[in-house]
């Protein structure tokens, strides 16, 4: 029986990761809850006047999306490392840089996509003007994919570390910044009535770059980490 081709294996891995996610519905709901809670905390911490809130809303929503991505990125390869699956993945005949895309894809589907889908609700809670909601969803869709890819690099580099702690946040938060800036700028532009296209185009260009390069970095990182 010949081993499955790279694409077929990728799909198998994606199904596996999604199945695992479905087995832990709480894990999926969790970024959403985190999102909800932080959005609820902000008015408490900042003082709740509606006008001020609306001004913050783009930034707050984007920062929350970023944090919740950061928190979940650490786990992308962790459990597979701990139970030995990662060793087996590295020994698989299929190219590793394609396999890791399946992990990132599953991560994005269960965090970024969901966040983007529910974000309009929170946007309304924070009094974000309606015309900005499309920009919010679009920028979150592209931006969270980018975040997942960047986070995957950090996760791959740190997964084998006994003494690493949450080193990952130090490694990837700086890399997250451009995404945050363009993402929240897009929403802010929409609030101000300016065109959103350029921001989304830049995010899209960054996403293309990341899709091309991040898998290579992740594959290299995993091969190194397993030997830490």
């Amino acid at each position, binding site marked *: 029986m010949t081993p499955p081709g790279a694409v077929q294996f990728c799909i198998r891995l994606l199904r*596996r990761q999604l199945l695992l996610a479905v087995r832990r519905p709480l894990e999926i709901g969790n970024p959403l809850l985190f999102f909800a809670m932080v959005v609820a905390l902000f008015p408490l911490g900042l003082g709740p006047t509606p006008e001020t809130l609306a001004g913050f809303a783009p930034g707050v929503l984007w920062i929350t999306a970023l944090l919740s991505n950061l928190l979940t990125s650490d786990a992308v390869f962790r459990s597979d490392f701990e*139970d*030995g699956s990662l060793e087996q993945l590295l020994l698989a005949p299929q190219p590793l840089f394609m396999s890791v895309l399946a992990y990132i894809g599953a991560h994005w589907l269960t965090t970024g996509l969901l966040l983007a889908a529910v974000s309009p609700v929170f946007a309304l809670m924070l009094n974000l003007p309606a015309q900005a909601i499309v920009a919010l969803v679009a920028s979150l869709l592209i931006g969270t994919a980018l975040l997942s890819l960047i986070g995957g690099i950090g996760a791959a580099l740190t997964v084998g570390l006994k003494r690493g702690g949450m080193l990952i946040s130090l490694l990837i938060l700086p890399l997250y910044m451009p995404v945050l800036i363009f993402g929240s700028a897009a929403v802010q532009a929409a609030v101000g009535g300016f065109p959103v296209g350029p921001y989304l185009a830049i995010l899209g260009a960054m996403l293309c770059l990341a899709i091309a390069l991040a898998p290579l970095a992740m594959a290299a990182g995993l091969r190194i980490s397993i030997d830490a």
Partner: protein
Amino acid sequence: MPTRDSGVPVLAARSLCLERGGRELFRELSFTICAGQLWQIEGANGAGKTSLLRILCGLSRYGFTGQVERFAPLLYLGHQSALKALLTPRENLAFHVSGEGCYGDEQIESALARVGLYGYEDVASHTLSAGQHRRVNLARLLLSDATLWLLDEPFTAIDKAGVDELQALLASHVAGGGAVVMTSHQALDVSCDVRYLNLGTGLAA
């Protein structure tokens, strides 16, 4: 299982040296593993058996000197089981990350039945006992096509009947032109020749 030629080299190691934590574990280790051979790596606790297996299969890439050449697909079972606790044994095999062939449901069921997990195909793996957990991995041996098996203490947590069956399986794999390199602290009782590689004293044919 396709028939394979005995005597063809499947893995060659040349002058492997490894130092761990200031202790030299082995030095100038050279050997060739051919189809049809069963090797047992021996050595006390901490002798370097696991480290050697990881070098042979290619997981360790830094910190040792020497070359390893691999001529055939291999299957490595380490101390860890690579099972997802939340998946059932059936799913664990069907979606296995090792990138082997796509197995049909009957194939998986019969393999699980052969390792004594009939009736446990669809429970979450974290409810399995220690031995049952390891047995799921042994089912991979029944399914796999790989010529060379690298097994790190495959008898751990397996009961007596299970050990006997596993030994029979190893012998039949070797007889069919496969090759096995394994570690164990138990003496093997198999129908084929066993070659020993003792990390304390060196090679012994």
